[in-house]
């Protein structure tokens, strides 16, 4: 950049975020989706890597561009091609080496959710002695962080007449009466949804906003502020209301929407920190922002409203960086600029608006769908927060590790015979080998005070006179005390017999319910590579129905003791559809590791829920 003063503050501010980028290796929902782009022929290709929440929009714009006159000049043509990659994962790949064989084409244009990721990348490159890749950028679209709530709940708190913010969330989360204090005992306790700030831009923004709220500031958050006991208390109390974390807000929105469609959106969460665009998507009947083939928008029974925290908020500003990288030649850079000019045209910025983002081009007035009918307010936010300095961000994240709600997790691992099949032909590792290594690695991501146990399942376990379908290898206990035991027992696992998926899952689930700890996130992490196969196919339907009924009943009651199930669908033969049903019944999330080589990355994403 030839304007060094302009970059001064962000560069400083992102030293700390370098640490964040290291942690952000997991993929968000929708990563690596194929956009259906055809053969670019002899055209100059402008590859884009974009954050998942805007993949649908940018794919459409790229396809329109490729068909337009803007993509042609004389005999030359440009072909824009889009792939989805989470902001943190892309930052890490760009800094550490982007392997096109596994990650897709290296981007000419990179569009993370927020420009701070560009500074993260440049900071990491600079620290390695490499040249920065980003610089000036066009902000393609914007969307502010909000607190989403079902309208009746917001109204019970005084919305829209009252200004609400994190202080209200805190008060509600600490009131033993819960929603009864606001005349709604039927809503139970206050439950908050927040993503993991090491993975999600929304989660990080919410964490920053909380810290500012605790100190009554809108700028200049300091390490001294974070060290105050009052700040620490504020954070712990808010975190105590969290139902679970996770790597993407879409998990919350999808679960919330399903609960709404079943008639009760109040039991899962009371509020979720999300981007404004997600509220619009939800209220439009498209909670994850992507309509798959055959899907149609279906309005929620009870809409959400966006609360713009009175203490202030932050924007996701969706930059379009033309990377200054060795793989980008002049023709590609020029092609990228043409594409950026195209998406900035008013008619295309109108499309941005239709997708629920605020257009980056101010020549386009903000209008529908950013309006009251979708629960959002185009005149908000009224106060923005300053991105803290790097050392403050570092401390904020470090302290969050200690402040976040502790977890109580049961690992339920499939050791059926099929786990002995090839997982990686290049190394000869079996699926179980890869799963064991990933599980052992993931154990280090838990806090010492988290509680973790280990069960395995297959048929004919234990004494042949009384065969079992599952075994408890390590009872759930403080992982700081049992981590090495867990690792040892995991290393010793071998592939055995059948796959009593339903019976084992129900037993593990009921065990967690019986030992439910309201001060913790209670969960089962289930890893399975096959369909239910317990030697008794005649009762499969009954077993599954029993499991789903038990899980659903516990999850939906207003006074529920929610135990979330996070299944990992492992390998090509896993029963992804059924695992998804189990996850949805528990208001957890399913993770797809159909390529066993992805299991380490997937496990990181699963553990981000805790």
């Amino acid at each position, binding site marked *: 950049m*030839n*304007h060094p*003063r*302009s*970059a*001064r*503050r*962000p560069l400083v501010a992102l030293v700390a975020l370098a640490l964040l980028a290291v942690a952000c290796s997991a993929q968000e929902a929708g990563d690596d989706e194929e956009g259906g782009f055809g053969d670019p022929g002899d055209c100059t290709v402008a590859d884009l890597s974009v954050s998942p929440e805007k993949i649908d929009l940018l794919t459409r714009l790229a396809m329109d561009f490729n068909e337009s006159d803007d993509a042609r000049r004389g005999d030359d043509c440009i072909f824009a091609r889009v792939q989805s990659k989470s902001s943190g994962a892309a930052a890490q790949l760009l800094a550490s080496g982007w392997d096109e064989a596994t990650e897709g084409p290296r981007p000419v244009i990179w569009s993370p959710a927020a420009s701070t990721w560009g500074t993260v990348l440049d900071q990491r490159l600079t620290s390695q002695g490499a040249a920065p890749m980003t610089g000036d950028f066009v*902000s393609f679209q*914007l969307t*502010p962080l909000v607190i989403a709530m079902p309208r009746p709940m917001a109204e019970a708190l005084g919305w829209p007449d009252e*200004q609400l913010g994190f202080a209200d969330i805190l008060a509600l989360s600490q009131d033993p009466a819960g929603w009864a204090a606001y005349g709604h005992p039927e809503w139970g306790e206050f439950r908050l949804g927040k993503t993991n700030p090491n993975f999600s831009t929304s989660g990080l923004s919410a964490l920053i906003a909380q810290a500012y709220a605790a100190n009554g500031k*809108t*700028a200049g958050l300091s390490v001294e502020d974070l060290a105050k006991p009052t700040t620490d208390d504020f954070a712990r109390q808010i975190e105590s209301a969290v139902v679970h974390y996770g790597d993407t807000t879409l998990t919350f929105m999808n679960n919330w929407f399903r609960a709404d469609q079943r008639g009760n959106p109040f039991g899962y969460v009371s509020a979720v920190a999300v981007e404004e665009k997600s509220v619009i998507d939800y209220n439009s009947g498209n909670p994850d922002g992507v309509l798959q083939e055959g899907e149609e928008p279906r309005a929620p029974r009870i809409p959400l409203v966006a609360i713009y925290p*009175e*203490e*202030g*908020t932050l*924007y996701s*500003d969706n930059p379009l960086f033309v990377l200054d990288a060795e793989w980008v030649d002049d023709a590609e850079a020029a092609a990228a600029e043409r594409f950026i000019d195209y998406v900035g045209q008013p008619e295309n910025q109108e499309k941005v608006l239709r997708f629920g983002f*605020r257009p*980056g081009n*101010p*020549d*386009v*007035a*903000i209008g529908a769908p950013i309006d009251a009918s979708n629960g959002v307010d185009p*005149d*908000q*936010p*009224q*106060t*923005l927060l300053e991105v803290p300095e790097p050392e403050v961000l570092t401390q904020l994240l470090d302290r969050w590790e200690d402040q976040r709600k502790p977890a109580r997790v049961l690992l339920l691992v499939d050791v059926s015979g099929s786990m002995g099949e090839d997982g990686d032909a290049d190394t000869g590792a079996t699926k179980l080998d890869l799963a064991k290594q990933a599980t052992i690695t993931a154990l280090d991501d838990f806090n010492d005070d988290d509680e973790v146990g280990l069960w395995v399942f297959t048929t004919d376990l234990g004494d042949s006179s009384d065969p079992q379908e599952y075994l408890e290898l390590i009872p759930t206990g403080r992982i700081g005390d049992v981590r090495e035991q867990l690792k040892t027992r995991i290393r010793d696992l071998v592939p055995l017999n059948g796959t009593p998926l339903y019976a084992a899952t129900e037993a593990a689930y009921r065990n967690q319910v019986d030992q439910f700890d309201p001060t913790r996130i209670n969960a089962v992490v289930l890893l399975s590579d096959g369909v239910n196969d317990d030697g008794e196919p005649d009762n499969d339907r009954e077993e599954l129905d029993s499991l789903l009924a038990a899980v659903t009943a516990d999850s939906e009651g207003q006074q529920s003791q929610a135990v979330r199930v996070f299944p990992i669908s492992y390998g090509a033969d896993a029963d992804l559809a059924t695992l998804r049903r189990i996850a949805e019944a528990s208001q957890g999330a399913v993770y797809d590791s159909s390529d066993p080589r992805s299991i380490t990355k997937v496990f990181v994403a699963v553990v981000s829920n805790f």
Partner: protein
Amino acid sequence: MRRVLAVFGAVAMVTAAVVIRQALDGDDGGGGGGGGGGGGDTVLVCAEDLRDACNALGDGIEVRVQAAADTAAAIDDGTLEDDVDAWITTTAWIEVLTSRAPDALTEDVRPLATSPAVVATAPNRFEAIESLCSGEDVWSCLGGKAGEDWGDLGDGSNSEWRELKVGLTDPDSAVGLSVLASASAGFFGNTTFAANDPAFGEFEGWLTTLAEPSAGGDPDPSRTLATRPGTYSAAGAVAAVADRFAERGVESIEPDTVVAATVVVVGLDGGRLPDVDAARDVLLDAGWSRASEEDLAPTLKPGVMAALHSLWRAVTS
């Protein structure tokens, strides 16, 4: 003797440049190509914030885009490339160089377009700011109240706006320095203040508070008002820029003391002015007014513009 020859040489080159320009200029002074005393394109340095206008220049002109402050520093320390013929910037930067490097620029200056500095207001805050600053210059008012909570200002009904923050167009840009001059004139109530004015110490504190929200350098705070509501309550900009965002609810208030940003093309030693009518036309289409020779008059006393820029650097570092 060599110095004398050099002076004569320089005078001769300037004279030749003027003669040639006059010969080539049309009715409004547009010049032809050529440059650097030799063949090939004329080389023009363009202030970054005027890039759109410079991009309209046609064949025969090589445009190099750079922040105005960087160009000024390069001219001042003699590191600007030798082949540069001219610079598109604002009169504010000519004032800076007139005091810092008086011999660096030729007297060959052509006014292109002008626009007054204004205070742009965030969507839905125009009336509140007008009411808050009633009977007082808007710059003096906003600078004096910057950093205060809106709940403590006016009737207190706008407490949700929290702290009163004002954005200033980055004074490293061509236009931004004129905006800084406008804000300063608002504090002093005139454009005749000097850097050793007794009130200058108080002004430093005033500017420190005012500059804080955009201390990192915001190239276009009126755009920020439009695209990132909640960042500022108001912003210093030129009217032509701020008016672009009316669709997003941005409005403008004129300060009592008018200071304008006037875009010019100025020749550099040994260079000659190219035809930049196309750039001027882009500015006029964008809402700027056609500038005249009268608009070339210095805004502030000699050296004060340079002192203001230095002070801004000091208070935001």
